[in-house]
């Protein structure tokens, strides 16, 4: 028995209807290392880790911890075995304090009462030991996302976990918070813990991991030492082909200003002004990126443009017509397309099939229907074509339920539907959120293609890299107001970053 592996998973096999999520995967982790698990969305990396954590039972295969065979039947057993997991979506009770959340499930008691004080003291000690800087008495609803993540980490430490699994931990963090998290991870390693990091962000792997295991389509591609590889090589292993990191853009050929937003004010759900006197124009043949920290009026702007939220004052002009009082459908008819940031809420009907989803915006038009009757043959034909054109991988083709698709393929289906409708204006909101390199590259290429074909693209993203890479002009929003509008070629990350914080251009000079 090789005792140098803390975790060894042998020939793990897991099948879901229509897919083999893990195809006899072997996976070994050494003590004290940060081991990255890399793969595209739907490659099977989360499934593999859910098996280790006891959330799924494999069809076949064995798990060894410290050389001893174990049966992880459920997460409680995983806890007892010293395995902890920080899920992508945090599992915290929002109106509980940090301490209450951490002790949930194993409340220490003294004379039938929960002994909060002892627990709180221990949490403080742990927090100090690992440099987490968490206030044990703060309410979850009042702390930042980054802090919530640390609470999740503390939850594992409180349960004496030795093997810590992080599922896409940086997806929800700002660049500064990512740096902090990496520091924390290093201090965890220094204290003798072992970390498994599920991710598809190559840069993070290069920055922090010791070794990296790559999975593609449920199969093991290989395990490599990070010091002996490059981002390009990892990407190639992950995607199965060479990946272009640079985005090639032709010079913009500008046309008319097709979308004009004039002095737009919109109320947010809380009743305050979420968008204040906002003006912006988008010309045919350009991508205008809107940068900003989440929750600064982007949602209000998008919903107002596509017609889901009524406006207080101002104008939304498309092709010279003020559409601000038009219903959603009329705006779509005017050539507006929308890639929503929440694909499950606004993008797809998950219980519908792919083919049904692909006609969601034009099912009522000929030829998909005539006199109120749907033409299923044509709808299926159309779906097959879009699936092919946009490389949507669906187990059962047009008949697959949208729910069964991986996130990346769901997004491709949405992008396919919106672009296939041949819009004049494309409003892309976080179009690559939660996607892997391959899918991001693909969607970026499609957005540029739209621009080159003379369409107007408004890109709203929280990823500054994405904005900088794709945009011709960059608008920055803060507290619902336009801070500035700059040419992408004449700016840099720092300047945009300052503007995102609300500092107007030139104010510091």
């Amino acid at each position, binding site marked *: 028995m090789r005792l140098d592996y803390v975790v060894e998973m042998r020939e793990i*096999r897991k*099948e879901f209807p229509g897919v083999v999520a893990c195809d006899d995967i072997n996976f070994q982790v050494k003590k004290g290392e940060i081991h990255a698990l890399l793969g595209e969305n739907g490659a099977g990396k989360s499934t593999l880790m859910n098996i280790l954590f006891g959330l799924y039972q494999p*069809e*076949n295969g064995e798990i060894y911890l410290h050389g001893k065979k174990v049966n992880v039947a459920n997460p409680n057993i995983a806890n007892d075995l010293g395995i902890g997991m920080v899920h992508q979506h945090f599992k915290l009770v929002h109106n509980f304090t940090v301490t209450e959340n951490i002790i949930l499930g194993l409340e220490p008691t003294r004379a039938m009462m929960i002994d909060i004080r002892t627990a709180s003291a221990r949490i403080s000690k742990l927090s100090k030991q690992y440099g987490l800087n968490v206030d044990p008495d703060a309410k979850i609803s009042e702390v930042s996302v980054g802090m919530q993540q640390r609470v999740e980490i503390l939850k594992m430490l409180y349960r004496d976990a030795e093997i810590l699994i992080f599922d896409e931990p940086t997806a929800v963090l700002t660049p500064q918070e990512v740096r902090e998290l990496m520091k924390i991870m290093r201090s965890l390693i220094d204290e003798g813990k072992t970390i498994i990091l599920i991710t598809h962000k190559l840069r993070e792997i290069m920055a922090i991991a010791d070794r990296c295991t790559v999975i593609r389509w449920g199969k093991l591609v290989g395990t490599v030492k990070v010091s002996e590889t490059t981002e390009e090589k990892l990407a190639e292993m992950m995607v199965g082909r060479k990946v272009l990191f640079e985005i090639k853009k032709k010079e913009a050929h500008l046309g008319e200003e097709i979308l004009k937003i004039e002095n737009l004010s919109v109320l947010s759900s809380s009743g305050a002004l979420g968008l204040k006197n906002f003006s912006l124009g988008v010309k045919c043949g350009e991508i205008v990126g809107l940068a900003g920290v989440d929750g600064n009026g982007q949602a209000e702007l998008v919903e107002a443009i*596509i017609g*889901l939220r009524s406006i207080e004052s101002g104008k939304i002009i498309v092709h010279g017509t003020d559409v601000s009082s038009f*219903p*959603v*459908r*009329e*705006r*779509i008819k005017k050539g507006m397309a*929308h890639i*929503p940031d929440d694909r499950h*809420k*606004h*993008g*797809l*009907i*998950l*219980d*519908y*099939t792919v*083919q*049904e989803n692909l006609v*969601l*915006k034009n*099912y*009522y038009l000929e030829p998909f*229907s005539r006199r*109120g*009757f*749907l033409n*299923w043959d044509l709808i299926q034909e159309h779906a097959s074509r879009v699936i092919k054109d946009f490389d949507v991988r669906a187990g059962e083709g047009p*008949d697959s339920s949208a729910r069964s698709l991986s996130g990346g393929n769901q997004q491709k289906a949405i992008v396919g539907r919106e672009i296939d409708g041949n819009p004049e204006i494309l409003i892309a909101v976080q179009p690559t959120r939660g996607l892997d390199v391959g899918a991001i590259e693909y969607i970026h290429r499609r957005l540029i293609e739209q621009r080159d074909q003379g369409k107007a693209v408004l890109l709203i993203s929280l990823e500054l890299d994405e904005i900088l890479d794709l945009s011709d002009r960059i608008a920055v929003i803060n507290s619902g107001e336009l801070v500035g509008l700059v040419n992408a070629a004449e700016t840099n990350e720092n300047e945009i970053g300052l503007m995102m914080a609300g500092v107007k251009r030139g104010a510091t000079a």
Partner: protein
Amino acid sequence: MKTKVRVKKDFLMSLFAVFLGLLAGAILMVVTGNNPFDGFYYLFRGGMMNIERIGNTLGMATPLIFAGLSVAFAFKTGLFNIGGAGQMLIGGLCATAIGLTFDWPKPILLLAIVFGSLIGGALWAALPGYLKARFNVHEVVSTIMMNWIAYWSIFYIVPAYFKGPFLETESQRIPEAASMKVPWLTSLFSGSYINLGIFLAIIFVVISALILEKTTLGYELKAVGYNRDAAEAAGISVNRNIILSMSIAGALAGLGGATFYVGYASNMQIGVLPSQGFDGIAVALLGANSPWGVFAAAIFFGLLHTGKGFMNAMTAIPPEIADTIIATIIYFAATSVLIERNWDRIKRFRAGALLRKAKKRTLEAGSGGDQ
């Protein structure tokens, strides 16, 4: 074609629920000291031993089909229509009123009755639909209230305008011309109370299936039911579809009322909410909300209702056993999600066992070859 797999699974689940319900009934019969084989023999014989009984089963099932369709249709749009009973009353009132008021030839009168009850039921349900769309009043609350409004309206209107010759509590009998019973059908089923309503029911099963599967209307209704937000973002009017869905559901229940009050029965009694309105929920559940599933489930329930009297007459088993079976089936149909989950687990377990066995065998075969 596209929903084949799903339909098959739902069908199996419903059969399973029925089987478990019958099993529970059998156990009850044994516990009460009876022979379950005799019991079931007479229960089913009572529902179909001769042409008259079959006719009665179909007659009993007719309003159930409509009530089930009504619930199932609303459910596709994510709405829970508990107002079937009230909508049936209003449909029945419209039918009775037309039948007692106009002296037209039978075909024209029946046509008027069909449209009258359809429109009455639709309007009665459109109001809760509007309240939901406009003010977000939950349809469960408003349709239940509408049931009682219907109940008391009948209480007033029937004695006031259509009072029967002898009793205060029921309407006059409708004339021959206004009844959905027709001599040729009655004699074909040797005197049973089957009526033209069953054909009407079949027509509306077909229409409902057609709307849901083939039309843009059905596509919109289901889209709103599955995901309101996505439907709205795609330009589908959510409010319009909620009102439409409730109206169609009400129209179906209203028609059910007509088949009940001027088909199965021939007058209206006050002070009764038709139980079929509520049974429709069970029918829709067992029929997995699909029109043909509803059809089959309603006939099955009709069979149990018709046969239970015969079972009681021929054995010592009380008729309540049949009701218990129905209740148990509803229970298992409602928990079919659980059954489904376990079903998957069993299948997975077996598949895994097979795989391991196969693997072991190949391993053994391989090592055998080495030797």
